């Protein structure tokens, strides 16, 4: 990564820059989550696309979203714990 020329920035501008970067990352992360969740839940729940989403499809989508997020939380926890273990062994 090339070095960044930021000498001219005041410290509040640096803070703003850092906040912006953090924001962008949160946004990107959320977009990724929503995209993936959309793909997975569509393929699980909408088997025969009709002219509208009926209530069973909507219920399935809602449940699927919750389960996907539960899964995400579990994966995140497990991954973090694993990284921590690897770090402790080094």
């Amino acid at each position: 990564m090339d070095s960044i020329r930021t000498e001219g920035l005041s410290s509040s501008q640096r803070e703003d820059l850092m906040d912006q970067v953090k924001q962008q990352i949160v946004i990107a992360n959320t977009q990724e989550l929503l995209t993936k969740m959309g793909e997975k839940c569509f393929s699980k729940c909408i088997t025969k696309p009709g002219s509208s989403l009926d209530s069973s499809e909507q219920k399935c989508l809602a449940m699927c979203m919750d389960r996907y997020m539960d899964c995400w939380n579990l994966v995140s926890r497990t991954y973090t714990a694993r990284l921590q273990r690897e770090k402790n062994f080094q």
Partner: protein
Amino acid sequence: MGWFFGDSSSDSPQTESHTSSFDENLSTDSGFSSFDTSSLSSGLDSSSIGSGGGKDSELQSFLMMEQQKAQMQAMIHKMNEVCWEVCVGAPGSRLDARTETCISNCVDRFIDSSLFITNRFAQLLAKSGGGM
């Protein structure tokens, strides 16, 4: 990765909430923060970055750290996708214990597989390089 985990107090504090009201999870900031690992580090303010050098090294360290976090996030998304396909059949009202075991095994085996493949590939490269 030492400096990354130097900041994190514990495992990611995501809650295993079975809430079915997705508004709660998506519409508030706290909902977002349960899905990003910025909650892992104790926040940029309290971490000591670049205490020696000038402000630029602080920014560079910050950006490196964010990059690492983003890479972790990408990894988590990938594993989530794969393990969802493998472990979850029809979405139910909660993740049962078997599914949870499957998911956590899946994560560990995914990492083991990646490491195995990387190492063996390096060996294969070394072998073919030596044979030339």
